[in-house]
Structures are given as C-alpha cells and as structure tokens.
C-alpha cells in the first residue's frame, strides 16, 4: 500500500515530518517497507532563467547558454543541445555534482567542443517525469527563478509504502491509515464527511441479485447510479500526479476517480459505460463456458464458482475483481454507471486465485471492505464525477441490504495488564479505542465495546488488547524477568532420542564424517529403489521431479551428494546425516535414522594416497566400523546383537549385513551399495554405507542409582592361546568366535580373529580362521593340564558348532 505525505495530510492535520510518520507507522503495526523522499532527490534542481542562448562556435547543434540560477551568483555557462533552448526562456537547471536519474549519471564540469559547461538544462525525460526528451523543460514566463523546481511542479511529495497485514483491511485506504496515526497522537483526523448527492429520477438500469438463500453472502449489496452527460478525458493534473506517485497509470477521469477512491478510502468501485450496457444488470454465478475479456486485455474462462455482473450481452465484469473491456469507459463515454458493491471475501480470494488476477479491488475485497461505506462510497464517486466530468446524476439504486455488523464485546480493562503487563489508566485505554472508532459504553472495570464497521477482524477482548497495546507502543511494555518454574538448578530436558540424536552426530563427525542436511524429498525412481514409492508419500505439487517423494532412506540423498562432490573434484568424501525418513504418512511412520556414507578412499583413518602406504578403497568393514562405533558411543549393549549376512535390496548381497536383536528387532544395516543401484543412479563407487534407526534402539534399563557395578579384578595373569581352524568357506567367523567363547564362560574373557586365509594350503572351498583366546583365571594359576583341558574343550566346541578341524 503506497501513499504520499500530502495525500495523507488530506486526512490528517499534522506537521509531522515524513520520518515521524514512518516511525509511528512502524510502531503501530503498519510496517514501512520504503520511504521515497523525492524532495531530497530533486533538491539541486532549480528554476532558472536563460539569459542568453547563442550558437556554439564549434558545433552546429549546440548552444552556449548563460543561465541565471536566481541565487545571486553570476550567470552560469551551460552548453546545451536542446533544439528549444532560447534566450529568455525559463527552464530547470542542475549544477555540476547533481545526480540525473533519467541518465543514471552524476554531472561534472566539462568542456564540450572547447567550451566549458558547468551544469545542465534538463528535459522531463532526464528527471524521469515523462518520456519527453525532445527538448528541455519550457516553463511559463512567471515561473519563480531560483525556487526548487520539485516544489513548483508538485513532484516533491514523499512516497511511503507500507506492508499491510491480512487483518487490517481498513489500512488499505489512506483515511484508515490517518485514523491510526491520529489515534497514536500524530495529528488530528480530518477526513471530510461524505455528503449525500441528490439525484434526478431513478436509476434507469436495475440490478438483481440472482442468488438463493445460501448463496446470498456472495453479494450482499450492490449500489448503482447513473451520471448522464459526462465529459470524459484526462483527469486533472493533481489527480494524475497522485496516481503516478503511487505507481498507477492515469487512464481517464472516470477510471482515475475509481482508483483514487480505492486508495483514498479503501473502497473499490467500478464504472460501466452505460451506452454499452444492454438491458439491466444481474449479479449471478458465471456459467460453464463463459468467457470475458477483462480490462487488462486478457481473456478469462469462467466457471460457476465465480460471481459475475452480466447484462443482456453477457458477462460485463468479474464481480469485485476486474471489469470487462466491453463496457469499460473511455473518452467517448457520456453516460456512466457507477457501481459500489459488497462481495464475499472467501469467494473473491478463490476466484482471484483461480484466474490469476491480482487487482487492487481483489486485494481489498478478499480482506473485507467496510460495508457501511458502500453507499457513501458511491456518493463520493458520484460527486467527484460531477465535479470533474460534469453531467447529471440519477438516484441510486440498492440491490440487497447492507449487512449490520454491529456487535458488543465485553472488555475488562484488566485484560490489558493480564496479557501484556502494561499498567494503563482506564481513561487512556478508552481514549485509544474511541480514537480508533470503537464505541465504548459503561464506566466500570468491564465495559462494552462496539467495533467500528471497518474492523471485521475484531472478534474478542484479545483483539482489543492488541489495539490498546499497539497504539501505546510495544516499546512501552516493560520487559519482566521470566521466573524459573522452581527455584532450582535447571533440570535435564532432553528425551532419550534427542540425546541419542545429538550424540550420534558428534560421534560420526569425530570419525571424520561431514554432516550433510539433504532434502526430505527425493525422486520417485530413487524412492522406489530404496524401499519407498508409496503413492501416499508422493507430493501432489512437487517443486521439481527430483524432489517428489518423501524419502524412505537417507542413502540416496547422500549417494547423490557424494557423486556431486566427486564431479566437483572431491571423489573421496565421507558424509553423514541424522534425520527423518518416512515409512507412511502417519506420525508413527516417521523415524530418525543415522546414516553414514563413504566414497572412494575416504576411510576413518585417513583419506587418499599416503607416503607410507597405498590408498585403500572403502569396503564393507569401513561401514561396519562406523555402525559399531556408533552403537558403542550410544552405549547400546551389543552382546545380543546379531549381524545377519545380507541387507536390504540396495546393498551388495554378499557384502552387507542386517543389524538386529532378533528377526523382529531390526535396527539397521551396513554394506557396500549394490552395483545395480549405482548403475540406476548413474553414480560411481566404491560406496559403502550404514543406516541405524535410532527409534528402534533399546532403551537402557532403569537403575535405582548411578552406581556402576563392582569392579572384580583378578590377581592372576591372563594367558593367551592361539588356534587355527579350517572350516568351509561359508562358515561365519562369528560362529567360531561365539563357540570358542561358549567353551568355558568363566575362563574365556576374549576371542579375537587374527588371521583369515583362503588358498591352496587349506584346499578348495575351505578357509583357515586363526583365533587368539584369552583365558583369565580368577582363583588360582592354571596348571598345564587345566590349560590343555580348556583348549581341548574349545577345539571340541568349535568343531561341533562349525565343522571345523584344527589346522595341522
């Protein structure tokens, strides 16, 4: 919403500066977006007298002018190329150092074909006043030399633009803005009252509202009036100047009047050329297949949800949004029908959205215009038409009824203190409300407040508190320390999952992984490849095809990101993300997953080639190490953890595993990505990843105290025995480790695999797995015989469980 300071002063008696106005607007909730101070911009331009204009000695098309700037200095020499430069004329002078907006340059003292020039005589184009650059501005003989040109020409009016929130339809008219400013103490409201305009004879065109009871709200009231014998043409300069200043293009007087009242009072109007209207007007639903060529020159296909104004010709206007070209007013218009109507905000918003029309009328009607100003608005427009275009007005006709929006709200003054902390005298609050147009009845602690017709947004006492608070100024609300709920040390607040999420991020970062935040949505094909693709998780209006489906896994986003980094010359990347994945559109379908992905040689220990070793590409064990490190950091006991060979479909079946505490307690997976997946995503490996669903991890057992279990240390030396077993290639090493440990649970405290061998020495389809078993005696040193007995038991157990033989 734009307006000029002088226009505001039509409604507000004030000597406030533009800065005061802007500061106050911000303070009361009408946010200033821009202030354009034209007076400052045009300050160097003065009205000047061309004392002489003589032919330039060295150029046919140039003249050397001596210019009297009226400032008591000797005439200034200016070289001018304008054909109309002549001795004795009055024009506009800009001295060296002036910024010329039309040319985007700053003037300097220059020498043109050997003659010095110390300024410029300006064209209207150079001042961005019009497209006219045929010659310099030619002012009347009586133009006051030495005076600022902007003030003389009336182009020094500062323009203020404010952002109006959706609840403040009343501030979409300058009168409404003035009312707010007056209430805030910036001046006295002086908006002139609208006098009734007598008419001669009834309006010859009638209006009917073709709505049934339940649709009556679409157009509650429609007022219409004819003015005969008008003379339409360009509107007066003052009106054109105001419209131009706020960015509107003057069309003709009749149209300009409607635009003027739209901004002056927030009351959109429409004018029909009465001679182009056939028969009477009917306000009705549009019909399927109907089209209208609107005033913006575009044709719109209508549907029955939309409301139109039609005559015997068909649709003449899209109600409350934009008029039709056919019955629009132009210079030939002699009889004009002026419309002032009320429309349903919701329907206007929907129609405007569907048709893609953004108009000043729609903008106001969808926020709600003042119903009580429907008929006065028509009178105001009629008077302006009579004043500017002449003619003779008919009486007004009104179809429908103006809704009565009066309502009384009980307002306890104490509510202001309760909600804001502001302690104000009751008279102050009453005064503020009354200044804003509210009627306040009663004298006690609780009064009855009746909102004005232009404030449809006021529903209850909280709204009244806001009115009082914003006019008082939020800066005057004292900040009050917010007490703790208990006078105590702050208690921990994070949930288990929140703590685990935080810890997971720090742990993975400490393993050399870089945290990424990737889109929650991925492409449809990718979603399908990674266990998703449920149509219920596909966006109806995705912003791009590759951002269409809610992600079922974090792997594809990270894999894509890794490839993009590789394409930029960073092939060895280690990325992780801890974020949400979606299994359904229900809240329970959303879980938090920690996922890390390594590419190239981006291993935890180091990346790339190194002087003391080769650059080893990442493999499944890098992913496993990340997963196990995370479980360890999160304190998840891994005693019962099963590492089941083979993972979800997007992993290499022979180089992946599922992490679970049981078939129904899967917590994640790790592995190398499946070659088919790499091909489908058009990315290159090696690429390994792990995924761990943090929601699926078991919660720690509740303990009554923070005591750690008693530490039992043995007084006896541990000893280690090595065993090399030959087993079938398919036997899982973990089985050997598990069996060895199970051979004597009291003595065996650790089993590690220190060598794995496949080759001719063990035969086809076999492998050798060498383990080191640590025995920890607790009550006495073991004898050789006892050690032998345990060793034999270990060999027997492993053989029994895995078919292993001790390697000879």
């Amino acid at each position, binding site marked *: 919403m734009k307006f000029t300071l002088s226009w505001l002063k039509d409604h507000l008696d004030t000597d406030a500066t533009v800065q005061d106005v802007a500061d106050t607007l911000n303070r009361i909730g009408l946010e200033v977006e821009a202030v354009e101070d034209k007076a400052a911009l045009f300050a160097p331009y003065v009205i000047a007298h061309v004392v002489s204009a003589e032919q330039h000695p060295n150029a046919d098309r140039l003249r050397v002018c001596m210019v009297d700037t009226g400032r008591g200095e000797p005439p200034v020499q200016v070289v001018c190329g304008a054909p109309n430069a002549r001795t004795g004329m009055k024009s506009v002078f800009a001295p060296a150092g002036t910024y010329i907006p039309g040319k985007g340059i700053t003037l300097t003292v220059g020498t043109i074909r050997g003659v010095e020039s110390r300024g410029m005589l300006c064209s209207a184009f150079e001042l961005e006043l019009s497209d006219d650059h045929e010659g310099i501005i030619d002012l009347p003989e009586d133009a006051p030399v030495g005076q600022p040109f902007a003030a003389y020409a009336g182009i020094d009016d500062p323009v203020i633009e404010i952002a109006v929130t959706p609840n403040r339809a009343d501030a979409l008219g300058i009168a409404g803005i003035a009312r707010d400013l007056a209430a805030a103490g910036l001046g006295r409201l002086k908006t002139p009252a609208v006098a009734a305009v007598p008419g001669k004879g009834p309006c010859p065109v009638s209006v009917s509202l073709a709505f049934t009871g339940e649709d009556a709200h679409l157009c509650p009231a429609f007022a219409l009036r004819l003015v005969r014998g008008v003379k339409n043409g360009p509107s007066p300069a003052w009106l054109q100047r105001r419209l131009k200043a706020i960015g509107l293009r003057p069309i003709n007087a009749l149209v300009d009047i409607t635009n003027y009242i739209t901004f002056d009072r927030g009351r959109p109007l429409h004018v029909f050329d009465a001679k182009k209207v056939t028969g009477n007007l009917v306000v009705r639903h549009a019909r399927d297949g109907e089209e209208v060529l609107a005033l913006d020159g575009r044709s719109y296909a209508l549907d029955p949800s939309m409301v139109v104004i039609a005559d015997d010709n068909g649709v003449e206007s899209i109600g409350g949004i934009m008029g039709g070209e056919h019955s629009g007013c132009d210079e030939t218009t002699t009889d004009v029908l002026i419309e002032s109507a009320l429309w349903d905000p919701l329907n206007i918003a929907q129609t405007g959205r569907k048709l893609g029309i953004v108009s000043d009328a729609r903008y106001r009607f969808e926020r709600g215009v003042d119903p009580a100003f429907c008929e006065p608005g028509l009178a105001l427009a009629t008077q302006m038409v009579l004043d500017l275009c002449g003619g003779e007005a008919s009486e007004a006709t009104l179809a429908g009824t103006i809704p009565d929006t009066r309502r009384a709200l009980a307002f306890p003054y104490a509510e202001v203190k309760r909600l804001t902390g502001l302690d104000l005298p009751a008279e102050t609050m009453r005064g503020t409300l009354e200044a804003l147009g509210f009627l306040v009845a009663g004298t006690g602690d609780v009064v009855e407040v009746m909102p004005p017709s232009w404030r449809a947004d006021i529903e209850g006492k909280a709204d009244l508190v806001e009115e009082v608070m914003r006019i008082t100024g939020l800066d005057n609300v004292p*900040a009050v320390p917010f007490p703790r709920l208990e006078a105590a040390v702050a208690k921990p607040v994070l949930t288990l999952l929140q703590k685990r999420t935080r810890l997971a991020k720090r742990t993975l970062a400490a393993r050399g992984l*870089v945290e990424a935040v990737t889109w929650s949505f991925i492409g449809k094909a990718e979603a399908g490849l990674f266990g998703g693709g449920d149509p219920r998780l596909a966006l109806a209006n995705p912003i791009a095809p590759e951002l269409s489906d809610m992600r079922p896994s974090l792997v594809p986003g990270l894999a894509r990101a890794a490839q993009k980094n590789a394409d930029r010359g960073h092939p060895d990347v280690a990325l992780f993300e801890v974020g949400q994945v979606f299994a359904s559109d229900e809240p329970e379908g959303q879980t938090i997953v920690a996922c890390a992905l390594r590419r190239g040689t981006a291993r935890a220990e180091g990346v790339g080639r190194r002087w003391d070793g080769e650059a080893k590409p990442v493999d499944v064990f890098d992913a496993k190490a990340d997963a196990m490190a995370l479980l360890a950091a999160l304190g998840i006991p891994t005693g019962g953890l099963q590492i089941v060979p083979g993972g979800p479909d997007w992993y290499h079946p022979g180089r992946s595993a599922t992490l679970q505490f049981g078939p129904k307690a899967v917590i994640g997976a790790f592995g190398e990505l499946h070659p088919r997946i790499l091909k489908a995503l058009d990315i290159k490996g090696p690429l390994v990843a792990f995924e761990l669903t943090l929601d699926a991890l078991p919660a720690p057992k509740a303990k009554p105290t923070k005591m750690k279990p008693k530490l039992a240390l043995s007084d006896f030396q541990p000893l280690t025995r090595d065993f090399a077993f030959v087993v079938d290639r398919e036997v899982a090493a973990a089985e050997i480790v598990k069996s060895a440990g199970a051979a004597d649970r009291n003595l065996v405290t650790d089993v590690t695999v220190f060598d794995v061998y496949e080759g001719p020495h063990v035969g086809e389809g076999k492998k050798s797995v060498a383990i080191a078993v640590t025995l920890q005696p607790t009550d006495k040193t073991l004898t050789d015989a006892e050690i032998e007995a345990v060793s034999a038991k270990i060999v027997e157990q492993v053989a029994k469980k895995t078919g292993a033989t001790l390697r000879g």
Partner: protein
Amino acid sequence: MTDIPTLERTLIGAVAAAADEAALEAVRVSALGKKGSVSELLKTLGAMTPEERREKGPLINGLRDRVNAAIAERKAKLEEKALAARLAAERVDVTLPLQEGPQTRGRIHPISQVIDELTAIFADMGFSIAEGPDIETDFYNFTALNFPAGHPARDMHDTFFLPPDDNGERKVLRTHTSPVQIRTMLGQKPPIRVIIPGRTYRCDSDQTHTPMFHQVEGLVIDKSSHIGHLKWILEEFCKAFFEVDQVKMRFRPSFFPFTEPSAEVDIQCSRKGGEIRFGEGDDWLEILGCGMVHPNVLRNCGLDPDEYQGFAWGMGIDRIAMLKYGMPDLRPFFEADVRWLSHYGFRPLDLPTLAGGLSS
C-alpha cells in the same frame, strides 16, 4: 716376571686402540680373562712371600684396577659412539606430512550446531524440546491454529500437499513448526515451556527461499506469562545466542492468525564490509514473529483462555545461523558440498554449553 709398567703401557694402548666393543672385549679377555696377562700376574701373588706380596701386591692390583677402569671408560665411549651411530641411522624426516585425522576432517552442520546452541540457552530457562511429524494434517497445520479456510494468510504459506485420502482429506508438509504447539498443548498439562526446532516446507524456491528450511518455535503456557516476559526472554536469548553484551530490539505490532496480540521483532545491527554486528549501528533486521497465544487456539486445545494464557514465538534457524556465522546464501545449506561444509561446519567436539560458551 713381566715388567708391570711395560705391560700396563701395552694394555692401556690396546684399550685405547680398540675400535669397537668386540675388540675391547678381546683386550679385556687378554688382560683380565682367565688366562689373561693381568690375571696371570694376580695368580703369582699366591706363591709369593709376605714381603714380596707386600711389595708386588699393590703394583699388580693397581695394574688390574687401572686396566679395568680404562676398559670401562673405553666401553662407555664406544657405547656412546655406537648409540650415536644408531641414532643417526634411525633418523627419519619428521616433516613428512600426516594424513588428516578423523577429528580434523569431521564436521557438524551449522543447523545442528545452532540447534544445540538454542537447546543450551533454553534448557537453562526450563524449556524442553518438543517435536512433531513433518507430514501433518490440515487440522494441526492450519485449522487448530486459527487459520480460517480460504483466509489469505493460508495462501501465503505455499503449502506442499500429499494426495487426498479416501475421505478427500489432504495431508500437508508442515509449513511451520507451529502444529507442534497444538500437539504439545493437547498432549500435556500446563505449565508448558517448550522450544520446537524442526524442518518446515514451503513450495517456494529462489535465491532466498528453499523448499525445505528450519524453524524454531517457542511456547509458554501457564496462568500468568505475558508480553513483558516474552520481551525479556527474547532479549536474553538474543544476547546469549549472538554472544554480545547488549542488543537493541524493536517490537512492531503485526498479525499472525494464531497469536493475539502479535508482533514482529527487529534487531539493531550495523553492516560494514559485509559483516553484521549486533548491539551497534542503525540498521534494523527482522528476526522473529511472536505474540500471545490466540484465545481460539487455546480453546482448540481444550484450554480456557480466561484461565490459561501464554505466548509463542518463531524464527528461522537457518536465518539466525546465517546472521551469526555469516553464510551469505541459504541454498548451500542443503547442497552437501564438502567445501562449504568443511568451511562453515563445526568441529566434532565443539559442543555448545553455557558454562564454556556457545562457540569457541
């Protein structure tokens, strides 16, 4: 009888000439070994008369002691030499560069870091962290928050929709974190003090907008909290978060469907050379929206607005991260470019705390 001084000269000379420990050992054996020249002399002492022994004993023992000492001295020297040779041989080029270790390479994303900072500040004020689903119903995202159907404020949200279900209802990707206010108020009894960080979505994409971004919302519900408390919390938050002693804030009345009264908050700053500094200057930067929870929202959550009251505020996590740490653009936050992440990310163990300071 050997001439002792001659033998001594010979032996001392041999010790001095021994080039390594083996040669020295050979000299030692030749002198002090079982059959050594000095040992042989010592053996003669037994056969001597007491007078002879009194005369020769000190000479021979003296010879033994001096040879021993010479050998020990020479041995020490040779060991020293050998060690020096070994050390010289073992020398490596310690300027050879290491590969960067994991702690050096790893990074925390600025969004995670800022959420941890927010958590540290607000946990101290007794706020817990509330969360909710990204896929929301129209009820939680709009209706319960007092957005009337068709209201222009709904339009301004650029909502992502999911397909309609059997009843024709479309779920949405939450356009703000405010639906979690509703879930919190429906799920727990006042007093409520929560902050709600999370992902939010709007189908809008340009230089300054991404279809996904992060918000943090605060909510307080009890029987006495008012705008004055809200102002204090936000001022304290801004000082703590931006790590400055003073901030100047400007509260402008505004409009949100779910708060009444509502305000937007600007923070005073200076911009010099592309750097934003808070607590000085004369520019204003909008950072958040806030207000008293609208009576209709309280009612929608089963709370009597005449009994309960409270306030809420919301701001962009990405935005305040940019303001504090100086990232010029929003889009790279979500592009996973390791160059950007390594530069703007945080070291793995830079855990923000109030005790140690939010940032190091």
